[in-house]
């Protein structure tokens, strides 16, 4: 098993997720909150890709020169997850535009009451 490639990826996933979480909790600017959410999404996508990695595997496109392929399913899932993240971001931007129109700023004043 080749840990040398996988371990940094897992550390990066954990780092991305916690950086994003830090941003979501500590920032008051809504734009920054949504940027942090995008960072978290990237982290999860990287996690999926890392899970699908097989040492010495190539892209799962059939080719006579290779016998070992990486797991194709997580890649398909990531494709889906990226599009979903994109759609949420697009809607978020539209919502922030209307929020800005109403309030004149992107700062979120009220607390997150449960």
């Amino acid at each position, binding site marked *: 098993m080749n840990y040398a490639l996988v371990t940094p990826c897992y550390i990066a996933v954990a780092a991305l997720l916690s950086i994003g979480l830090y941003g979501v909790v500590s920032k008051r600017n809504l734009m920054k909150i949504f940027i942090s959410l995008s960072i*978290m999404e990237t*982290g999860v996508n990287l996690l*999926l890709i890392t899970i699908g990695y097989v040492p010495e595997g190539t892209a799962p496109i059939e080719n006579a020169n290779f016998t070992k392929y990486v797991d194709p399913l997580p890649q398909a*899932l990531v494709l*889906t997850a990226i599009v*979903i993240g994109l759609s949420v971001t697009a809607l*978020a931007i539209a919502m922030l535009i209307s929020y800005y129109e109403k309030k004149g700023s992107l700062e*979120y004043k*009220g607390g997150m009451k449960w």
Partner: protein
Amino acid sequence: MVVHPVLLIAIPLIAAFIIPLAKKYGFAIAAGAMAFNMGYAIGMFSYIYSHGKIYEMIAGFKPPVGIFLAVDALSAMLALLINLFAFINFIAIGKEWNYKFSMLYLLAIAGSTGIVLTGDIFNMFIFFEITAVASYALIAGKKDEKAIEGAIKYMVLGSIASIFILMGIALIYSQLKTLNIYDIAARISSMDEKIKWASFALLLTGIGVEAEIFPLNGWVPAAYQGASSGVASLLSFGPSKAAIYAIARIMMVIFPFHATYEIALYVGVVTLVIGELAAFMQEDVKRMLAYSSIGQMGLILIAFSLASQNIQNALIAAFFLIISHASAKSSLFLLSRSPSMGGAACKYTGIVGVLSIIGMPPLAGFWGKWYLMLAAINEKLWLVIMLVFFAGIVEAGYFARYLHKSMGNESKLNLRYKVAMVVMVSFTILLGLLPIAYKMASLPLWGW
């Protein structure tokens, strides 16, 4: 006759795709699709009632390789409930908005139906996203400050939720290399303990946001208060019910362990008590109804969590609580559009809805609480029983105040609203009076 549950998802989708081509007829197309869905859901339920559970493969591949829809009696009933109420509610409110609202409404309904029917965990995630994105847009659709604020709150929490769900799925996949709920369930024992519990925690947290469970429901009051009353009504019978069913499915199929049921029981009790107490302290009607919804979701979760010992009673309880809450709360939300509730129709709706939520016989809510008690007594959970009674008293308190405050002037609701809410709230009487509760005791509710 062969039933294809997939049509319940495909038809609303194609209707939503077609609407921009015929903008003028948006309302008609959407209403037609929902009417079809309602009829088909009734047909599907009666088929399952007589033939037992069904499954449908998608794309013709055998299940763990392809996706499949697994429908048992309970999920067929929930699909029926969601589509039926969606149709009634949409007829009432659809004309006030433009065609885009109809599209979003259809998509939200298709998503909720998909969550209930699907047997694949990633597919469930996709339907969660459809439902959630459509709900964000619908909540913000009122376009005033509160609506947008509520939608943004929901959006932030919902995005974190979707990240957590996806992470939970990734963890499960890393160990079992499968996404099919029933395949996962069959091989869950070969999973690493730590990862198993981590993925359960992540999935529960993620879906709990949609299902309005206690520490995760920060968005609920703001979103319900901000949304227009029709949309609040949609949220209370559609997405939240589908989400609580998803929790039940994941808990009972994938993680059927003693500890998970216990966690769900605690979470449910805390949600119930805190939701009801918070509802008691609210001044604003919609906020009060929203907190009351949180409490009711806790009650439904308690019902599901009792299913480990006496599955039949617990599931009947859950179903009756779901239907009572869906019909009563969605009609009360429609009613909350006008501050006063004079007039026969409004009074009738308000009183019947409130009585059903409190759990007065012979309404549907009573049967829900009755079977919940039976299940709880079986397990000797006296504290839970006392807390449920206590919650009922608190409910009675704030609903009495609500009725007292809002009786009086003639309400200004139009006829559509009145008809819709009377029809919706009548389901609690209908299901309470018909001996369906006894019939259901012999029906295998949980097949897959």
